[in-house]
């Protein structure tokens, strides 16, 4: 590196030469700190890895238990990963246009981003929704909104992922009734609801009910979907948000798998057989900056899941052992400074996800620290995957890094560290108890603060932020959502409500309330309510009135 030609203006001082920056680091260009070489999670790295670092014992090929090297023998030769770009904004009609645009440009699956009122179970016309409608996702309050969202999209041929948690089962009910009214059998539907409420308490914070009743909604969904919508992924157990909230890779791995084990235990406690629902559990991980650590994380996740499902929970169906996952590149690594650099970050992160054997992938748009993605930024993000898929040659070989001294050693280390953290949660009394104690979110906040400290001190390099900065950056074009979106959506919803058979709506909502009070299947009641045009907010209000609401204590992190 020719240090003299590289501008390096640090936020505090400015103008220092690279290599003698604020942290006084002289150890060389590649280290993360001035003391030692380590991964982003803080795992120390040796000077070099050799055959001696390879774990003992066999390393079965891809497609064989414990699936460290991948869940399929042929991996991407058999089928490429699904290119699934998370998108949603404004009204259902606007998002439908974006969906069609992405499909026309070669996207192979859909992924819906909902707005905050929808995520929290409120209709667009609720007072609390004011100002939030269609802002960070699409507003879906009713069956009619769902129908507009998927108009002209062949539900039996495109798989759909819906990032929704508290009210996941209600949105699934809308989707099912929409399919029913189009004459598409539920057996033909493929898709995913995120439905991972535990990580909402840790990180994303869009909940509907307290933890215990939430777990009941989830087990009701597992049961109903196993019988009625057999190709549907009923929970996408998500580390993504945990990582975005500031966790390390090891914490992401451990907390996500611990959440997964909690769902397995809840399903079994509700009387389901593990092999009846575990094959439909899928995962969602972050694809962050530390290239090898990320690949090791995915490999360790597969092995840990397979072993635990088989050995601890007695799953006998190999499909229960296979951890399938979606990956999304790390939004939190994107920078507002020099946004074009984000394209490069995303490409490396996507490569890590593919080398780690993901089943589907979202690549972020370069402008996401500024606003929702513009059409051109969303297209470039999709092109990034297409170049990886069809130009790089990477997908031709399953787990091409298998046997790499460093990667195998790191995979083992990640698995060991994550297992220790999972055990800590078990010793605490399980994940619900850890949620009650605020353990997970406190651990995440601690890591987030630590990372921020490293960035502020310059110990951790963020190109364009604390090194290689540039003055006077040109603003990029962004997408903005006008106030007319909310007005249009609220008017549409009011008209929908006025056109319904009020008696049937009342009867269906009473059914939801009865199911909530009793033990009959909630998803069945939601489907019935959806058929009779009850809205999301109406159903959720009944649930809240019977099962309660949830508030997280605010200041506990200060006392940690």
């Amino acid at each position: 590196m020719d240090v003299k030609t590289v501008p390096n203006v640090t936020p505090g001082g400015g103008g220092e030469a690279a290599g003698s920056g604020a942290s006084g680091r002289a150890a060389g260009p590649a280290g993360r700190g001035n003391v030692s070489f380590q991964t982003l999670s803080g795992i120390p790295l040796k000077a070099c890895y050799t055959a001696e670092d390879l774990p003992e014992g066999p390393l079965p090929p891809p497609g064989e238990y414990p699936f460290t090297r991948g869940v399929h023998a042929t991996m991407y030769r058999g089928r490429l990963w699904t290119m699934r770009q998370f998108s949603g904004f404004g009204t259902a009609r606007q998002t439908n246009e974006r969906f069609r645009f992405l499909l026309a440009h070669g996207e192979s699956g859909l992924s819906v981003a909902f707005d905050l009122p929808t995520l929290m179970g409120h209709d667009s016309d609720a007072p609390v929704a004011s100002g939030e409608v269609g802002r960070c996702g699409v507003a879906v309050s009713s069956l009619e909104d769902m129908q507009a969202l998927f108009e002209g999209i062949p539900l039996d041929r495109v798989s759909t992922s819906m990032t929704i948690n508290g009210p996941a089962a209600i949105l699934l009910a809308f989707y099912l009734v929409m399919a029913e009214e189009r004459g598409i059998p539920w057996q033909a539907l493929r898709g995913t609801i995120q439905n991972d409420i535990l990580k909402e308490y840790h990180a994303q914070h869009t909940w509907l009910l307290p933890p215990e009743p939430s777990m009941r909604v989830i087990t009701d969904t597992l049961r109903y979907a196993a019988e009625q919508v057999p190709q549907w992924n009923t929970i996408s157990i998500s580390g993504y948000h945990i990582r975005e909230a500031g966790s390390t890779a090891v914490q992401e791995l451990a907390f996500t798998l611990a959440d997964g084990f909690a769902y397995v235990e809840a399903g079994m406690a509700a009387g389901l057989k593990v092999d009846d629902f575990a094959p439909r559990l899928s995962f969602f991980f972050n694809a962050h900056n530390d290239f090898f650590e990320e690949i090791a994380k995915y490999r360790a996740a597969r092995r840990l899941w397979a072993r635990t499902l088989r050995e601890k929970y007695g799953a006998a169906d190999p499909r229960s052992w296979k951890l399938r996952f979606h990956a999304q590149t790390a939004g939190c690594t994107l920078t507002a400074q020099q946004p074009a650099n984000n394209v490069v970050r995303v490409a490396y992160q996507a490569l890590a996800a593919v080398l780690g054997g993901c089943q589907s992938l979202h690549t972020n748009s370069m402008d996401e620290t500024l606003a929702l993605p513009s059409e051109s930024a969303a297209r470039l993000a999709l092109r990034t995957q297409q170049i990886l898929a069809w130009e790089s040659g990477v997908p031709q070989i399953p787990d091409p890094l298998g046997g790499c001294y460093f990667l195998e050693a790191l995979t083992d280390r990640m698995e060991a560290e994550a297992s220790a953290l999972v055990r800590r949660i078990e010793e605490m009394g399980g994940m619900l108890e850890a949620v009650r104690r605020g353990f997970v979110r406190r651990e995440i906040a601690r890591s987030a603060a630590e990372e921020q400290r490293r960035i502020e001190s310059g110990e951790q390099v963020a190109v364009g932020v604390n090194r290689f900065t540039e003055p006077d950056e040109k603003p990029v074009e962004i997408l903005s959502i006008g106030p007319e979106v909310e007005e249009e959506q609220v008017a549409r919803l009011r008209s929908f409500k006025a056109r319904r058979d009020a008696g049937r709506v009342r009867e269906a909502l009473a059914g939801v309330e009865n199911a909530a009070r009793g033990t009959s299947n909630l998803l069945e009641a939601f489907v019935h309510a959806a058929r009779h045009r009850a809205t999301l907010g109406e159903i959720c209000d009944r649930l809240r009135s019977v099962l309660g609401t949830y508030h997280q204590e605010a200041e506990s992190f200060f006392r940690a």
Partner: protein
Amino acid sequence: MNTEPSVPTPIPRRVLIAKIGLDGHDRGAKIIAAALRDAGMEVVYTGLHQTPEMIAATAVQEDVDLVGVSILSGAHLTLVPKLLKLLAEQQAADIPVVVGGIIPRSDSQAMEKLGVARVFTPGASLSEITAAVRELASKARAAAS
């Protein structure tokens, strides 16, 4: 982290950090709250999902010198003006309000016109935010006493 004051300030500054609306992204708010606390300020953190009404009430009750609003949901042009109006109605318009989050440049300007003291967007450093908060809170305290 260079957030310690060069000259120790005799009066502790009391600031409210608030998450407004339905937005659940609190990584930034917690980091800011902790940084201000580490810089010697008294910090009240509201927690998640606060309405403008709740925040205005807390600001008045807690007699804070500054309100810092964190919002990444895009609802800032509805919720922040509402908060300013409520503070004014409660004779608390002198409490400076700063906003941090994903805010397009044109929206920052619009909010500053309405009376928001500063807007911080992604890329702002902790030392920059801490210094600005300290200055605004000190001015507010001096004006009030």
